[in-house]
């Protein structure tokens, strides 16, 4: 097959995380059979699963988190009883002091770069007498922020391990299409680790258990897995929601929480304007009362597992989107999810969002319509949806105009520079700096997915700083001219090529390459 460099760019960047450095041959492979290159990852059985030794199930993690929080509480109670004043600012979540903000930014810039160069000797800590001199001479004011070396608790350790597994997978994946799909769906059905300890503990297992198995499966299955996952139930407060007429609701004088029901309709399935009303929200909220997870004592089931608490469930039939659901127990909710998963509004909403993510902020309506059609005809087969996108000419013809999200940018840099992360904190810092903290969007609608969001002045300035940091750590030993070949080959513009060639140092050239339109756009 003839070499198609333009299509290779699309295959690698629009559908994947960018070409890998080293001897991957990604660009040539993508250029010789662009569509095949993209599709190859979809044909691998269980290719989207992430099974890494040491990563535990949500249930096991839940138990560990409950136990930890219980111990913290007990220690706190004991301290209160013995009238010892509690340590200042003590809490499960160790927030750095607010005045450390500026330093944090710098540290994260620094650390992301350090991470990208794990093999660089200078990163190793000082070890002899000269270094005490170094410490001595450092100007006093910018003190290193709260000690990173402090012992991490089980929740922080878990988050780091989950993050590392995800980052490593993204950096080493062949083209990255399957991982991009995971990120897309994970953002669609987002939770936020910022919600609290349990969400932080479960952010990774939620994605591994509720998203990954279904990324190339059925939307309805993913929907059910997500809405019954403890992480989602915790994130959107459904474990607190009680049917007003349920036994628990009457006893405890508490009632309905519509949060999860609203987001299911508005964000997960039908979309705003998808034809639902407030009555539908309330009815669905009633229907899913009792959807919760078992606590530390395991009265309802194994701690940290999804359980249906009949005591909290609103009895009786409910009408959602014009249909009466009178089944009992959790089957009532599952029936609703099954129906709205195949609702035409859902097909339209998903198709639009999917095309917007992969193709353009304003995707061609004809493409969106075709994707919606595939979604409907295949009953929400997400592999068919992905294949339909890859098979559409629109996806290959649209100009590479979307800017990479911070996550896509940092992963792409790690790939091109062939730096497999071994410390997640450092990527995590970079993502925070650039406004996309991992698994922690500010709302249930996830991170924005548009140029307007990421192509912002401060964001670009920070990207430049981060690129400079990365480059200053690893430019030695790499030739930015070669990397440009690996990343864009003959599709690199004359201006970009010249800018890189004329840079006054490898460091500068590499920073400019990472910031070039060829690298920033997808």
């Amino acid at each position: 097959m003839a070499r198609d460099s333009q299509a290779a760019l699309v295959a690698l960047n629009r559908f994947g995380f960018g070409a890998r450095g080293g001897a991957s041959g990604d660009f040539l492979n993508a250029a010789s059979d662009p569509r095949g290159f993209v599709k190859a990852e979809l044909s691998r059985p269980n290719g989207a699963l992430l099974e890494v030794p040491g990563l535990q199930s949500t249930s096991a993690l839940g138990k560990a988190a409950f136990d930890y929080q219980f111990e913290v509480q007990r220690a706190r109670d004991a301290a209160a009883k013995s009238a010892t004043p509690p340590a200042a600012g003590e809490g499960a979540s160790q927030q750095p002091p607010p005045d450390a903000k500026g330093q944090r930014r710098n540290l994260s810039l620094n650390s992301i770069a350090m991470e990208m160069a794990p093999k660089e000797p200078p990163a190793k800590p000082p070890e002899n007498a000269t270094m005490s001199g170094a410490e001595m001479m450092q100007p006093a004011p910018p003190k290193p922020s709260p000690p990173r070396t402090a012992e991490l608790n089980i929740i922080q350790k878990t988050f780091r391990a989950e993050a590392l597994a995800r980052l490593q997978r993204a950096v080493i994946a062949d083209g990255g299409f399957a991982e991009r799909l995971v990120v897309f769906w994970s953002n669609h059905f987002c939770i936020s680790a910022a919600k609290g300890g349990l969400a932080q503990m479960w952010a990774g297992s939620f994605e591994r258990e509720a998203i990954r198995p279904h990324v190339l499966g059925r939307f309805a299955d993913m929907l059910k897995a997500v809405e019954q996952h403890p992480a989602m139930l915790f994130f959107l407060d459904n474990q607190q929601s009680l049917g007003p007429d349920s036994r628990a609701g009457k006893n405890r004088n508490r009632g309905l929480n519509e949060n999860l029901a609203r987001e299911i309709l508005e964000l997960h399935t039908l979309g705003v304007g998808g034809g639902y009303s407030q009555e539908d929200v309330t009815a669905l909220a009633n229907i899913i009362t009792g959807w919760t997870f078992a606590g530390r004592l395991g009265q309802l089931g194994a701690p940290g597992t999804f359980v249906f608490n009949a005591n909290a469930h609103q009895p009786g039939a409910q009408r959602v989107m014009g249909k009466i659901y009178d089944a009992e127990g959790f089957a009532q909710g599952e029936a609703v999810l099954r129906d709205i998963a195949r609702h035409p509004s859902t097909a339209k909403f998903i198709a639009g969002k999917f095309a917007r993510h992969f193709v353009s902020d304003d995707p061609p309506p004809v493409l969106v319509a075709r994707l919606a059609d595939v979604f409907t005809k295949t009953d929400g087969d997400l592999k068919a949806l992905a294949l339909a996108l890859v098979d559409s000419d629109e996806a290959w013809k649209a100009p590479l105009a979307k800017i990479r999200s911070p996550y896509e940018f940092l992963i792409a840099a790690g790939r091109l520079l062939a730096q497999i992360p071994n410390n997640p904190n450092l990527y995590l810092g970079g993502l925070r700096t650039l406004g996309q903290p991992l698994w922690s969007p500010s709302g249930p609608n996830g991170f924005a997915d548009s140029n307007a969001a990421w192509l912002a002045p401060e964001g670009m300035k920070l990207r430049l700083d981060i690129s400079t940091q990365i480059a200053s750590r690893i430019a030695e030993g790499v030739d930015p001219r070669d990397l440009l070949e690996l990343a864009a080959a003959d599709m690199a513009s004359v201006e970009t090529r010249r800018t890189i060639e004329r840079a006054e140092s490898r460091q500068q050239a590499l920073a400019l390459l990472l910031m070039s339109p060829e690298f920033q756009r997808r």
Partner: protein
Amino acid sequence: MSMETGMDCCEDMRSSATSRRAVLLGGASFAAWAYLPKFARAADGRDPRLVVIILRGALDGLATVAPIGDPDYAGLHGAIALSSSGPNAALPLDNFFSLHPAMPEFARMYRDKKAAVIHAVATPYRDRSHFDGQDVLESGFAGPGRVQSGWLNRALEGLPKGERVSSALAVGPTTPLVLRGAAPTVGWAPLAVPQASEDTAMRLLDLYQHRDAALSAALKQGLALDKAAQGDDMKPKPGAGGVAAMRLAARGAARLMGADNGPRIGALAFDGWDTHANEGGPVGRLAQLLGGLDGALAEFETGMGPRWRDTVIVVATEFGRTARINGTQGTDHGTGTVALLAGGAVKGGRVIADWPGLKPASLYQGRDLAPTTDLRAVMKGVLKDQFGLAEKVLAEAVFPDSSAVKPMQGLVV
């Protein structure tokens, strides 16, 4: 020294180069003891230090140490040429060369015979790529290649066994190639995190303006906001090429290397010397950078304390710039340039040059100051005198295949 000598013989520089160099270097009263390996003299309390400062981007040697006595200089360097009169007059070093006015500290050291200039110097590299030029400069090999060790590191390896040698110090976030290799190094960087330099930002903006209007608009605004937030009167941010950063790095490195058990060898790299446009003359962009370098040298002098006496600092760059200014009041990639020496151990007060002249026919490829001295000769001379490295080691291990390049003699007191 020597300008007269150099001037006389410009007609036929090729044939007489060797003899003229002999005149230039050999005439001084170097006693034989001066060539004894100084390293072996630890018994007399001497504890040598060597700092290599690399200026990335190719320094304009003709603007740094201007051959004001050369009748062709002013015409070639045009509007940015230095002059010995008027405001911001260049600082005379001898009756031929003058120093850029932004370097008063170096001028003072020169007067005290603690600083020297080697002019019309170059590595063996004769092309014009920064990357390759820096490879040659730092690897110590005769040509560009993927060598993963630098000459300064191999020099460390070549030191006599049993001598106390602390790890070499690499200043900055990465170890420069010159100091990479098997011998141990320690790294130190000023705490302030370098952000992207203004030069990098401007190059990127230029690229965006040609290729991507939206990226251009966003970055431009982001930079402006950043500036506004910092305040225009703020000192330059520490960053690659920043003047404040040069002093900061030097101050820290000097503190470390000045300690009794401190590293004997250190390397720093300063960016930003690629002056294609608006280079400036006595004032302007290059002047700022030279001021930063000058400040860094002064920081070393202060910070090294008693060790300054035994210190040699070598300032080198990957190549020079065109002798003639270009259409944008700057200079393009050239060949011959200067190397600067400073430190208490430098036998200074001299401009060492086998001056090729700036007549059109004398220029390298009609463009550049022709190199007449191999930079490796300078490095070899310093290594030999400071650390007693044998010529054979220098010719084979430190600068491979360089036996034809003899160590320059008498650079160290």
